[in-house]
């Protein structure tokens, strides 16, 4: 009788492997922070030569990534995707601000960032500053960046996700590297519609 009882338990257990209802919330393609918090403020130098603060972009959706202008693969791919997303947004593109925060202040001064980012989209803005200021920003966002020595210089091993900040300045989501431009368009439209 015991094996039969065990079989019944297993069978019923299998039948019961259906979980509770899906959780509600903002249906972004990106990872969503719930509840959202105010995005940590920046106190950096913009590639436009001005002080760069997130407060400047209230009313816009902000897409913020971390990287460096000498990055051979990840950063150019991300920036090209974000440029494509802005194009796909059409007239709403003006309501989207891309901010690229360098992890390499030694080489990325405002002028270099401006030249670099203009190749993707002239509306992109770069952010640089003193190493300790950039460290503080990375810590506030949970971003890692590690300098790696190469035979011909150095690179950075860094977090590659893109942060999504809503028009009220709240950190709503984080898109992993590699997602398509249409995913950003989907999420930004949701953020702007709120």
């Amino acid at each position: 009788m015991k094996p039969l009882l065990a079989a019944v338990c297993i069978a019923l257990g299998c039948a019961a492997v259906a979980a509770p209802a899906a959780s509600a919330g903002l249906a972004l393609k990106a990872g969503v922070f719930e509840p959202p918090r105010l995005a940590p403020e920046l106190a950096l130098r913009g590639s436009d030569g001005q002080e760069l603060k997130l407060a400047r972009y209230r009313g816009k959706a902000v897409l913020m990534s971390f990287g460096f202008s000498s990055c051979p693969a990840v950063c150019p791919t991300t920036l090209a995707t974000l440029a494509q997303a802005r194009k796909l947004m059409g007239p709403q593109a003006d309501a989207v601000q891309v901010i690229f925060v360098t992890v390499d202040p030694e080489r990325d001064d405002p002028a270099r960032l401006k030249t670099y980012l203009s190749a993707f989209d002239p509306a992109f803005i770069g952010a640089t500053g003193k190493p300790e200021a950039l460290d503080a920003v990375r810590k506030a966002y949970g971003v890692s960046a590690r300098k790696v020595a190469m035979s011909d210089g150095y690179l950075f091993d860094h977090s590659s996700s893109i942060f999504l900040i809503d028009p009220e300045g709240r950190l709503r989501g984080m898109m992993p590297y590699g997602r398509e431009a249409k995913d950003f368009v989907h999420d930004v439209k949701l953020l702007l519609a709120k």
Partner: protein
Amino acid sequence: MVRRTYWRAALAACVACAALVLGALAWAAWAPLGGGSRDELFEIPKGTYARRMAGNPVEILPDTIRLTLGVKDVLLLRNLDEVPQVFGPALIMPGQSFRLPFEVASTYSFACTAHASGQMNVIVQPGPSGPWQTLNWRVRQLLRRAS
């Protein structure tokens, strides 16, 4: 007479149980997956930071997480501790959760300072197709929950 009645009752019970087993297995094999939560939840319990500071290693998030498209394809990380925690790819505030959906089967690597390797992998597999794979998936889920 009593013995014959006993055996009849036992036989009826066996037949009923067998029918129940077969019915449940058939359901588990043919009933469509989905409709329930697709969240794969990992939580940082309260007191984790204090235990780490006291020198006790705490492993919550495995180096590799396996998800299944269309069934369990949302990584849900929740911080129940009293301090911010880097949990997988995200910095999560106390009481906050991070919910990351996946739509493409692939292997995703994230920088993660919470792991000794500095990296966390999420392997997203295609969902089971066909009754045998569906049954197999449900049995594996059941065994995982039981362990």
